[in-house]
């Protein structure tokens, strides 16, 4: 029996985050964030730079503590969720260790969990197969392209079967074509693993293509201004990018982003 309560992976209530210097608030990065993310969702956080979308991701991942409000992940405080290794994280840079082979990089979280060598090897092989890098297991990160490195980072993040995958502009450094390929790849992995994903991006098409819901944020202070359901049929493919509804949703997100900046739009000439 699964109650609705159990289906919520992340619940943020009244989350504020301010950065202080000398006892004074310098920046209010987040203000009054309420958000509920259900199991299996793919959520994009989108907004102008400085809107706090990365900070929100880091607060959810307990990489930084909120100034007020609370985060619960799988019904427990974020700190406990981190200790229970409920998270997988992918940053904009792949953050692979050059002294480890591709396979050993994927094994890292399994080593930290204290798994046996046999378990680790099996799981790492599985993950490399998932991101289609089996042939590169013995390579070192510097021998791979940027897109391949990011796939290794994704394999590493998924190695512990996290219930929540946090991605902070993971394809921001890639060229447009590689990015589109990585987007399709990520969707395939998401469907196969059923992991809940929170994905930070500033690309509107990327957010619409990937997500089940797009959370639109605005800056100063960072807050959620709109949440848009992207009801495009699953599984999505290159064809999805040509459908009228895809463009409708892109327009909707763009308008929501503009609406979040009232001062800016009133300044603009008609």
């Amino acid at each position: 029996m699964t109650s609705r309560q159990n289906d919520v992976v992340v619940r943020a209530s009244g989350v504020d985050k301010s950065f202080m210097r000398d006892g004074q608030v310098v920046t209010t990065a987040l203000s009054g964030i309420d958000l509920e993310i259900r199991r299996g969702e793919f959520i994009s956080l989108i907004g102008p730079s400085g809107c706090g979308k990365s900070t929100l991701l880091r607060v959810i991942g307990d990489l930084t503590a909120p100034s007020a409000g609370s985060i619960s992940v799988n019904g427990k405080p974020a700190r406990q969720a981190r200790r229970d290794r409920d998270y997988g994280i992918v940053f904009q840079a792949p953050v692979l260790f050059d002294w480890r082979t591709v396979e050993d990089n994927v094994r890292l979280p399994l080593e930290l969990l204290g798994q046996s060598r046999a378990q680790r090897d099996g799981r790492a092989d599985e993950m490399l197969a998932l991101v289609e890098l089996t042939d590169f297991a013995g390579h070192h990160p510097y021998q791979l392209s940027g897109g391949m490195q990011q796939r290794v980072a994704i394999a590493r993040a998924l190695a512990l079967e996290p219930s929540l995958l946090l991605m902070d502009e993971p394809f921001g450094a890639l060229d447009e074509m590689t990015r589109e390929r990585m987007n399709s790849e990520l969707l395939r992995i998401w469907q196969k693993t059923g992991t809940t994903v929170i994905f930070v991006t500033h690309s509107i098409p990327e957010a619409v293509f990937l997500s089940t819901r797009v959370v639109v944020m605005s800056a100063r202070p960072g807050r959620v201004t709109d949440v848009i359901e992207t009801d495009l049929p699953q599984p999505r493919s290159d064809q999805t990018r040509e459908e009228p509804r895809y463009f409708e949703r892109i327009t909707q997100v763009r308008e929501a982003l503009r609406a979040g900046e009232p001062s800016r739009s009133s300044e603009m000439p008609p």
Partner: protein
Amino acid sequence: MTSVAPSVGVPLPSPLGRQRTGRFGRALSDYLPALVAFVAIVAIWEFAASRLQTRPYVMPPPSAIINALVENWSGGRWPLFASAQHTFIEALGGLVIGTVIGLVVAFAVSRWASARDAVLPVAVAANAIPIIAIAPIINNWFGVLEPLSKMMMAALLVFFPVMINVTRGLTQVEPAALELMRSYAASEGEILRKVRIPNALPFFLTALKVGATLSLIGAIVGEYFGGSSEVVGRIVVQSASALRFDVTWAAILLGAAAGIVFYLAIVVIERVLIPWHPSVRGEERQ
């Protein structure tokens, strides 16, 4: 014999022609310019010394230096080989002592802020002491005739670059790498073993290269201020005052040889410890 014809469709490595000569040939062609320059300098030196009739105590020709090296190799008033051995061991001992202390302090300093505040200013101040000024005191403390006093001189010079570089390597870790480890709830010890130490290895080896040269300088400077007569520093001082500059040059040559032995050993260690580092993998980078 192996066939060396390149197969069709496989791009040749550049520059052309290198792939045919194999490993030895490649090494030879890499070092050929330096070798030519070295031979040329020696030839010009020899030629100039004989044509200009320079007095041997101003600038002995290379042939005279080689002569002095051979004649004094194993005995007599200037026992060159034994001296080089002794000095090498002093420098090596100093390198080991200085490196071990440097490592211990670096780990402590990068782990505990209180250790950093207490130790760093003292270390910087100690490093500011001119090594020549303190040599007589070190000789006095550890015994002027004991190799240990020269080792301590060398260790004093080696300590600082090792400590500073390794501290840097342990602390200058990509912030995202630390966040990644944090997201896996890794302990400080795990972060040390899996991130900080591998990250510090290239820094450590750079410090070792610097330290190897410094250890020879420390040992020889210590010897200038007194020591057993069978060491490079004493041979240099005494042969120079006897105007036997051919012997002086021969001793300097052996000192340089000791430095090269150190350097090559560290290059080998580098290839074993950090084959993944850009400084080692060099051209192999794709």
